[in-house]
């Protein structure tokens, strides 16, 4: 989705569909509202004093108080503007192809990080504390494949819904890339297996079966590509000892809970 030729982030492609544009929860801005409240009390106090003592103050004092009051109000506006830029220009975008994290730190520091949605390994949501629980906001942690830095969507509203949607999009992206054969990890795995001498049809079928139904049994996991979505499956399989392996070879299946 591109509105009037303006992209939501620099590398957005024309066929990229934006599912979420998330900003931090308004509670995150409360510190600036509190500062504004303090400033307002001070400025109202000065204005009240100025009006109450109209005619009794010397000219220089009156001018000084007028200027001081004006400076306080303008400083209040400037602080609020700074806070708003910091708060409102932090944006998390979820598209059908990637996750984008845009962070604005002050006026002259802006970071944009991207993550292909296929590279997502695990997504979890955390809501802790009184206000977060009451107002339904929290953090979403997105673990990535490899050594990439994990993504954190901080203080976003409805984190559980967002994390579930990211998982759904991830699975959809995996399924789509498998259908058109563009998943590079599957390709690489298949090439490796071919080098080992397996039949191409066998490998392709096994990879397809597993990706379409990634967490059925440990036995199915053997010898085929393991999608990185199902970390439970990978961990369980890696922990299987010799005796379990023997049982598995005999045909006993061990269920793995799908995450």
């Amino acid at each position: 989705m591109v509105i009037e030729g303006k992209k939501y982030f620099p590398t957005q492609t024309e066929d990229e569909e934006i599912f979420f544009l998330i900003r931090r929860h308004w509670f995150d801005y409360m510190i600036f509202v509190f500062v504004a409240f303090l400033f307002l009390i001070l400025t109202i106090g000065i204005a009240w004093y100025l009006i109450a003592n109209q005619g009794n103050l010397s000219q220089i004092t009156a001018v000084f108080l007028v200027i001081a009051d004006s400076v306080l109000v303008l400083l209040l506006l400037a602080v609020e503007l700074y806070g708003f830029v910091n708060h409102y220009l932090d944006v998390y975008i979820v598209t059908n192809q990637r996750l984008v994290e845009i962070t604005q730190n002050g006026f002259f520091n802006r970071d944009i990080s991207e993550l292909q949605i296929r590279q997502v390994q695990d997504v979890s949501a955390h809501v802790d504390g009184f206000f977060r629980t009451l107002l339904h906001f929290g953090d979403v942690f997105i673990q990535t494949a490899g050594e990439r830095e994990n993504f954190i969507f901080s203080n976003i509203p409805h984190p559980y819904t967002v994390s579930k949607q990211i998982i759904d999009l991830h699975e959809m992206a995996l399924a789509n890339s498998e259908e058109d054969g563009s998943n590079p990890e599957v390709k690489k795995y298949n090439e490796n297996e071919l080098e080992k001498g397996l039949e191409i049809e066998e490998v392709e079928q096994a990879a397809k079966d597993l990706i379409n139904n990634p967490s059925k049994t440990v036995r199915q996991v053997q010898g085929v590509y393991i999608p990185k979505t199902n970390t439970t499956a990978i961990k369980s399989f890696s922990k299987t000892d010799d005796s379990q392996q023997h049982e598995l070879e005999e045909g006993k299946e061990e269920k793995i809970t799908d995450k």
Partner: protein
Amino acid sequence: MTITILVAAYALFLIAFLIFSLIGSYHLRRFGYAGDLTKPVILFYTVISTAVIIVTILAIIFESYGA
């Protein structure tokens, strides 16, 4: 003389404030999206700031010459 110094200091503050406001508004305009709160905030900020500055200038004139 002292009032002149006060007014000159205020003028310097206004210049700094103007630069700061322009930078902030530029960021909101540059990185905001269609239909979001950035444009209303720029408008609100500009209107309130201008009103405060005009009222202050009028009050200074009133306190200096009008009373």
